[in-house]
Structures are given as structure tokens and as C-alpha cells.
């Protein structure tokens, strides 16, 4: 029964493809199967996007002792629908000085790769659109295109704020991509594979009550936290939302976008967050595996989406808590703290691999990472609040 429930979507797809093959030639089987997977993925994540916009506004409201949206539908549940209708019916304003073609293409260049990145995330047992041999590399490769789209949006608008926002965004994305990839590399070292499916399989299984998740090791915990911070910076989430700081550069690179194009940027940003959170789950939180042995009867995709929702909730919580960083703080945090710590984490992961199992390797790796954390953190804090700012003109 549990098995059946777990594989219900996989079975449904097979049945559907079989039924469709009665009507179309057999050579189309692969195409049909891929199209069905893609459609399901698009619908599921678009629905999750709608839900998340609502949850975010509700959660932020509660953190600030407000209600949040509660007018459209019961408990405000239809608010995303209202937002969507609003975005679709709004006038699409393009500045006269803008570079029309680049301005038009930029949102597409953001949305398409971001959805492509979802293709390698295993959302359940046997539920992945493509199991690529170099899946992780694929994820980061298509993620690279978003930087270009941000630049295109910022440059083509012919607005100094949008260009500033784009430059900030690119500088930030490039800086945080280094610790992001380095902390992912630790997992690749352990799993011995770049395939996301294989990485999840490595983490399946229990020793006693504890699952074999990577986050439950010293290097995994450090890697997970580093990955989460870098992911927040990659997805332009608070406290790293300088590129779109409303109060300083009035929404940054999408200042000149309105209507449906703005909605596309918004969608792209959230799907990017889901993708990178999904990758964090795949790499460190055991993907679709159950956290405890006796709840394994719960379908695997439920676990994946539960983990995804809790990570999103964490991001919302952080957004409701932390103020935005300053640009120099952002950069010194990336290069003086994140990068050395992720390199040391790489070392710790290597040691973990080659030290004999037991308490010694736990103690050794934990001590190494804790010492690095305290030392780097102290040096960062001592330079007066994450590095002192030097003013060029306003001395």
C-alpha cells in the first residue's frame, strides 16, 4: 500500500503514456514521457510559487504583528489569483530610451534556465525529469545564465538605478557562487558522483534512529549552513537583497519592468529560490528520504516538499528578522569569511573520508571547523562590524 502510494505518480505517468501510445506512433514514447514530466513539474512549482507568495506575506505580517492578506477568499487564500490577474492586466510600460529587444528578452532568459534547473532535482523516489550523469554541473551551468539576464535587464532599461542594481547583483552572484559550489563539492567528494539521484541514494538508510544525511556530520552541517547562506545570496533573498533594495536603489534591475514582465521576474526569482533550496535538500538533507525509520511509509515526494516548505519558511523567517547588509560588508563576508571557511570545510570533508570511523574523526573535524569559525568570525567582527567602511568623498 505504502509502496503503491509512493509510486502513484510514476504509475500514473506510465499508464497515461501507454494510453496515449494507442493514438500516436511508438517513436513518440520518450517525448511524451518527458513532456508529461515537464508539465507536472511546471504546474507543481508554479502552484508552490503562488502558495509561497501568500505564505511569505502572511508570515512577514505575523512576524510584525499584522494579519497579512486576508481579504480575497477564505483566509486570503485567493490572493495569488488576484495578484496574477492584476499583473496580467496591467499596462506594460517600456521606457522610450530602453533597448527594446534586450529589454524584452531579459525576463525570458531568467525564467527558462531557472525552470531548467528544476529538471535534475529528484522530488521523489524515481521522480526526476532527467537523471544526468553530471546533474550537479548542469544545475550550476544553467544557473549561470541568470546572471546574464540580470545584466540584460539592468543595462537595457537605461536607468542608472537599474544598472547599479545589475552591477551589484552580478558582483554578489559571482562572489557567492564560489562558496556555493565549494560547499557542494564536499558532498560530491563523499558521494563520488555528480548525479543528484546517486547523491540522494547515498543518504538513504539509517544507523539506529539517525538517517545517513550529510547534514548530520560536522562537515555536512558546516557545508549546509554555508550553502544556505550562499543560496540566499544567489537568490537575492534578504539579508542579501541589495540588488533590489527598494529603499536605496528602488527595486534595482527590474525598476523599469511592469505588468507581466515584472511578474516573470518575480516568478523567476522564487523558482530560483525553490531550485537552490531543493538542491540544498538533495545535497544535505537526504532528498526525499524519511527522517526517521518508522515514518518511511509516508510517500517520498511528501518528504521532499515538506523539507522544501520548511526551508522556505526559514528563508521567510530570516527575511523578517535581518536587515540588509551594506555592499562592503557583503563583499568582505563573502571573501574573508565564506570562502576560507568553505575551503577549510573541504579539508574537513577530506579528513572525514580518510580518518577511521569513530569518535576521533567526529572530534577532530568538529574541532577544526569550530576553531576556523571562531577565528574567522572574530577577525571579521574585530574589523568593526564586518569591516570598516572607507569613504572616498564624505570624510
Amino acid at each position, binding site marked *: 500500500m505504502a509502496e503503491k502510494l509512493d509510486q502513484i505518480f510514476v504509475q500514473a505517468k506510465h499508464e497515461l503514456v501507454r494510453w496515449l501510445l494507442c493514438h500516436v506512433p511508438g517513436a513518440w514514447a520518450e517525448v511524451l514521457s518527458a513532456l508529461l514530466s515537464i508539465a507536472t513539474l511546471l504546474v507543481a512549482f508554479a502552484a508552490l510559487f503562488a502558495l509561497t507568495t501568500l505564505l511569505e506575506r502572511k508570515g512577514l505580517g*505575523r*512576524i*510584525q*504583528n*499584522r494579519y497579512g492578506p486576508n481579504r480575497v477568499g477564505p483566509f486570503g487564500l485567493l490572493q495569488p489569483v488576484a495578484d496574477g490577474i492584476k499583473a496580467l492586466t496591467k499596462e506594460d510600460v517600456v521606457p522610450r530610451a530602453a533597448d527594446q529587444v534586450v529589454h524584452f528578452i531579459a525576463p525570458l532568459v531568467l525564467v527558462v534556465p531557472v525552470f531548467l534547473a528544476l529538471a535534475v532535482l529528484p522530488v521523489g523516489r524515481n521522480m526526476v525529469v532527467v537523471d544526468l550523469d553530471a546533474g550537479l554541473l548542469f544545475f550550476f551551468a544553467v544557473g549561470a545564465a541568470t546572471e546574464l539576464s540580470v545584466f540584460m535587464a539592468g543595462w537595457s532599461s537605461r536607468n542608472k538605478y537599474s544598472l547599479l542594481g545589475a552591477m551589484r547583483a552580478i558582483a554578489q552572484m559571482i562572489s557567492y557562487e564560489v562558496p556555493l559550489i565549494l560547499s557542494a563539492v564536499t558532498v560530491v567528494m563523499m558521494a563520488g558522483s555528480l548525479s543528484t539521484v546517486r547523491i540522494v541514494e547515498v543518504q538513504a538508510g539509517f544507523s539506529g534512529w539517525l538517517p545517513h544525511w550529510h547534514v548530520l556530520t560536522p562537515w555536512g552541517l558546516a557545508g549546509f549552513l554555508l550553502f544556505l547562506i550562499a543560496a540566499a545570496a544567489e537568490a537575492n533573498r534578504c539579508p542579501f537583497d541589495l540588488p533590489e533594495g527598494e529603499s536605496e536603489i528602488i527595486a534595482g534591475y527590474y525598476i523599469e519592468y511592469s505588468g507581466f514582465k515584472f511578474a516573470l521576474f518575480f516568478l523567476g526569482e522564487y523558482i530560483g529560490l525553490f531550485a537552490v533550496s531543493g538542491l540544498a535538500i538533495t545535497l544535505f538533507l537526504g532528498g526525499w528520504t524519511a527522517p526517521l525509520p518508522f515514518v518511511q511509509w509516508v510517500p517520498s515526494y511528501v518528504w521532499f516538499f515538506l523539507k522544501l516548505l520548511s526551508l522556505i519558511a526559514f528563508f521567510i*523567517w530570516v527575511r523578517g*528578522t535581518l536587515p540588509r547588509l551594506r555592499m562592503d560588508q557583503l563583499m568582505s563576508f563573502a571573501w574573508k569569511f565564506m570562502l576560507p571557511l568553505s575551503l577549510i570545510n573541504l579539508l574537513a570533508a577530506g579528513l572525514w573520508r580518510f580518518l577511521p570511523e569513530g569518535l576521533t574523526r567526529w572530534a577532530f573535524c568538529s574541532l577544526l571547523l569550530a576553531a576556523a569559525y571562531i577565528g574567522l*568570525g*572574530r577577525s571579521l567582527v574585530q574589523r568593526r562590524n564586518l569591516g570598516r567602511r572607507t569613504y572616498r568623498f564624505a570624510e
Partner: protein
Amino acid sequence: MLGEGIIKGLAETGRNFLGSYFEPDRLVTVQYPEERLPAPETARTFPFLVYDGDDWQKGLRCVACQICEKECPPQCIYIVKDITKKPDYIGKLQFQPKVFDIDLSVCMSCQICVEVCPFDAIKMDVEFELSTTDRFGRLLLHKAELAKPNEYYHKIHPAEAAEVDARLAAEKAKALAKTQADAAGKSVSPKPALKPLAPASG
């Protein structure tokens, strides 16, 4: 150590989040169309005309003196005086406005009309839900929409209305006393009637 502040901050916002579900006092937002706060005594939006008695056409306090029309800074009041006097609600003959219009889209709620009115005939309303799709028709209020009973005035501004009523009653009593005194004095001598009034007005 690095990160302590972040954890403290997260705890604080977490407490806010959970607290908002268990302590209703935290949520200060008024859910406006369903629940509304009572308007304060001194609240004001736009003017209305007060009438006494039951029939608004007879009971209007306004005598069409047109002071408010002249004083109104944005000139949103338009009055046409009736040529003949008509009996008011107690049967006394009075001038009455034939037309009394206020353009709410022009009015700036300055309350000068209320201050200059010698008859306490125009007062400020607290009604604020005036949005309409017909800007020229629905925001130009005529006499019929402007006239509201004295009881309504008592309801929205109780203290002020009581004061006004007391003053009006006192003036009425004084006028009554004066007419009686006049009636009494006319038989004796009409001349000293002005004398006791002079210090009172000064």
C-alpha cells in the same frame, strides 16, 4: 561570537510570530469594514444642515443668510435665497434657502462655514464612505441630502450638540423674555429699552 545576534533576532521574531496567534492583543489592526472604531468627538469630514422637528423642509435652521457662501475659501457652497418667507416647524415665518448645494469634491473640510454661521444651522458630519463612480452627480450634494435631524447631530457630536442646544434654548428664552419685556415696556415707555442691552452686548 559571530552569529549570536542573528540567533537572538530570530528568537525575537519567532516569538512575535507565535505570539500573534496566541495573544490577540498583539494584533492592533482594525479589520475595517467589519469592525470599526467609533469616530472621536472632534472628528469632521464635510458639512451638513441641521433641522429641528420632523419635517426637514420646514425645520431647517438655515435662513439663507449666505454668510457661509461668502466665507467659504474654496467656494463650494451655492445658495439661492427664497423670495418669500415660509413658516418653519413652529410656525414662525422665516426665509429659507431655495437651493443649498455643497460640492464635496471642492470642500476642504476647514469648518469655517460652521464657525461663521450665526444660527448653528451648518455642522460637520463624520460620514466618510463617500466614494462613488459618478463624480459630478454623487459628490454634489443638494439640500435634501444635506439636511439631517438634530438627533443625528446629537449622535455624532454629543457634547457639542448639547452645548449648542443649551445656547439656543438660552437665546430663545432671552428673546422670549425680551419680547415679553418689550411688550410690557411698550405700554409704559419705549425709550429705555436699548439701555440694558448695551452693556450686555459689549
